[in-house]
C-alpha cells in the first residue's frame, strides 16, 4: 500500500478501477448475452439490449450427454492438480529460496525449459507412454500431465513470494524454540497467502481450461469440460448459444471460488511486522 487516504481520491480511483473492470468484463457479458438469446437473435445487429432471456441453450447444455460427468471430472482433476502442485511447489520454492545449494539455478531453469517446449510436440509421446502403462483415459494421467505443466510456474512464483519475506522472521521463531518446519508453516506461509492465492488461481485455471492433452488422453471416463465445450462446433456450423452457455457454466464456479477465496486472505497489511 503506497498510501492514499483522502476520500475524494479514493472515489476517483474506484471509478477508474471500476471502468477497467467493466471494460474487461465486456466480452464476458457479451458471452452471457449470446447464451440467453436464440441463435438467430444472438447474432443480430444491432444487438437488442433489452431482451427477454431464453434459457433453451442452458437446458440443452445441462441435458447434453456427458456434460455433467465432464464437469465433475474437471472439478476432480483441477482440484487434484492444485493440491499436488501447491505441495510440490511450496516445498521446492521454499528450498530454492532459503537454501544456497549447488544446482539450485539449474533446477529453476530446467523447470522453465520444460515449460517452454510447446505442448503440441509433447502430447503424442506422452500419450504413447500412458498407453504403455495402461493409463489412457484415466484422470490420473491427466493430473500427472497437468501437475508437470504447472509446477514450473508454481515453483517460480512461490520462490519469488518466499524471497519477499525476510528469513529473519523464521530465524527469530527458531531462536524462540520452533523447528524449521513450524517456523515456515506458522510464520512465513501465512504471510505469503496472497501469493499462494494468485498461484492457485493460475494452476487451477490452467488445469480447468486445458484442451490439447484432454482431447488426446481421454475418451469416456476421464473426459473434462473443454472437450465437451468444443463439441458444440460441428461440421455444419457453430451452435452459438449453446457453446456460450457451456462456457458460462464453466466460468461460474471458478469466478465464484476466486471471489470467496479473497475473503479468507488478509490483504497483506501485516507484512513487515518484525518484532523487536
Amino acid at each position, binding site marked *: 500500500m503506497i498510501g492514499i487516504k483522502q476520500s475524494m481520491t479514493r472515489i476517483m480511483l474506484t471509478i477508474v478501477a471500476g471502468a477497467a473492470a467493466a471494460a474487461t468484463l465486456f466480452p464476458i457479458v457479451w458471452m452471457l448475452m449470446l447464451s440467453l438469446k*436464440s*441463435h*438467430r437473435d444472438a*447474432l*443480430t*445487429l444491432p444487438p437488442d439490449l433489452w431482451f427477454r432471456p431464453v434459457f*433453451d441453450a442452458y437446458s440443452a447444455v445441462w441435458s447434453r*450427454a*456427458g456434460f455433467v460427468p465432464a464437469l465433475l471430472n474437471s472439478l476432480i482433476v483441477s482440484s487434484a492438480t492444485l493440491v499436488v502442485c501447491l505441495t510440490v511447489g511450496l516445498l521446492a520454492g521454499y528450498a530454492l529460496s532459503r537454501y544456497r545449494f549447488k544446482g539450485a539455478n539449474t533446477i529453476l531453469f530446467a523447470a522453465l525449459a520444460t515449460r517452454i517446449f510447446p505442448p503440441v510436440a509433447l*502430447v*503424442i509421446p506422452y*500419450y*504413447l507412454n500412458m*498407453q504403455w502403462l495402461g493409463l*489412457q483415459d484415466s484422470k490420473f494421467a491427466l493430473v500427472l500431465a497437468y501437475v508437470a505443466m504447472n509446477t514450473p510456474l508454481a515453483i517460480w512464483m512461490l520462490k519469488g513470494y518466499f524471497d519477499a519475506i525476510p528469513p529473519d522472521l523464521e530465524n527469530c521463531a527458531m531462536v524462540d524454540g520452533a523447528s524449521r518446519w513450524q517456523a515456515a508453516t506458522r510464520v512465513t506461509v501465512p504471510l505469503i497467502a496472497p501469493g499462494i492465492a494468485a498461484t492457485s488461481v493460475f494452476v487451477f485455471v490452467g488445469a480447468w481450461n486445458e484442451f490439447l492433452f484432454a*482431447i*488426446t488422453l481421454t*475418451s*469416456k471416463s476421464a473426459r473434462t469440460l473443454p*472437450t465437451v465445450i*468444443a*463439441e*458444440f*462446433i*460441428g*461440421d*455444419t*456450423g*457453430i451452435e452459438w448459444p449453446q457453446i456460450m452457455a457451456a462456457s458460462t457454466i464453466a466460468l461460474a464456479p471458478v469466478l465464484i471460488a476466486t471471489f470467496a477465496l479473497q475473503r479468507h486472505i488478509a490483504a497483506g497489511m501485516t507484512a513487515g511486522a518484525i518484532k523487536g
Partner: protein
Amino acid sequence: MQDRRRFLASAGATASALAFPAIVRAQNRSITWVTHPAIFGATGDGELLRQFEAKTGIKVEVVTFPTETLAQRLQSEFVARSPAFDVMNVADAFWSPTFARFLEPLDDMIKKAPLPNGGLEDFSPGMVDFFRLPQASTGAVMAIPLRMSVSLLYYRKDLVAATGLPLPKTLEDFGRLAKAMTRDGVNGVVIQGAQGQVAVLDWYEHAAPFGVDFLRMPEQRRAAFNTPAGVAALEQRRQFIAEGIADKGCISYGFDDAITAISQGKAAMSVMFSAYWPRFEDVKQSKVAGQIGYASPMRADGVTQAYPARGWGLAINAVSQKKEMAWEFMRFISDAPQQKWMGTNKGNAVTRLSVLSDAEFKAKVPISAALASTQRYAKMMPSTPQLPRMYDTLSRHLGAALSGSARPADALKQAETEVNALFT
C-alpha cells in the same frame, strides 16, 4: 446321498463350464464407435443404436470428439496401434492412402455379408470411389460413405425473383445474378476465403463443375488445376470482392460465417454443401426460414463428375478385435431405412440414391429435388499423402489473388509449379 450330491455338484460344474464361454460371449457383444456429436445426434442420440441392439444383441458404445479434433485423436490411436475403437468415422478432410492403411479392407466383408437394399450400387459412385484404395473403381473399398454432401446452390427465392433473372447455368450467369442482387445492404453472394482448406474447396466448387481437377487422374502426381476454367473461377471471386458484390470480410469467412451471413439476411446466394440446409430452415437460427431455394449449381455440359462430394465415411479399425460385429453395425446404419430416418428426421446428409426418391423424404426434406439432380454427378475428391501440402500451397496463392496482390492467372501458374514440385 453323498454320491447324488457329488454327482449334482459335478454336473452343475460341468454345465456352467460349458455354458460359461457362451455367457461371456453374450455379455461381451459390444463395439465402440468413435464419431462426432452431429452424427450421433443424427441417430436420434442413440435411438437407432438401441434399435440395432434390440435386433442383433450388439451394444454400440459411442465416444464422441469435436469435429475438428477427431483427426488428431484418430491419428494418436493409429500411432499407438490401439484396438479401443472398432468403428470410426473418417472424413475427406483427413483421408489419405496413409490413413487408409490403418483400416480394414471391406471387400471380403461385402462378399460375405453384402450391403442390403441394393448394395454399393445404391451409393453415388463418386462417393464410393473416394474411399477406395487406390482411388479407382477397381480399388479396394476401405470405408462406406455415411454422411456426405455435394455442393448446392443456395439462393433467396424472393431476391432472385425480384431480378427477373433465371437460375444460373454458367459462370457468367452466376456473376450477373450476384451483381443484380447486390443492393439495399445485401450482398449478392457470399464466398468463403478463410486461409487453409476452406478457401481452396470453396474455389473448387466453382471450378470443378467446369471440368477442373486438382490433380491429373489416376496417378495424382501432377497438378491439373491451372486451366482457363480454374482461372475464370478465381477471377470471378476476385471481382466479387473488389466490386463489393461479396463483402470484403469474405476473405476471412469459413462456412459458419457464410451460413450466418445468409441466415441473417446479409447475403443472397452461395454455393455450399448440401448438409447445411437445416440451418436455414430452423426459425430459431435463421431469419430467412422458408425463403431459401435450393438448386443444382451451374455446370458445363458433359461434365459427369461435377460437384465435389465431401463428408464422412464409416470404417473399421484394422486392429479391432470385433470386426464382424462392426460390419454388422455398418451394414445396419448405412442401410436405406436408417439413412431415410436420419435424413428426414434429423436432416442428415444421405448417401444412398434410393432414399432420394422416397416419398416421405421428398415431402419433408426441401433439398430433395435439388439433390436428385445433383448427387449423381458427385465428384470424387483426390487423395494423396501430399494433399495437405497441396491445399496449403493453393490456399496461399488463391488468397493472394483474392486480395488482389497477384493476378489469378499468375497465382494458379505459380501454385501449379509448386504443387508439381511436391511430387518429385
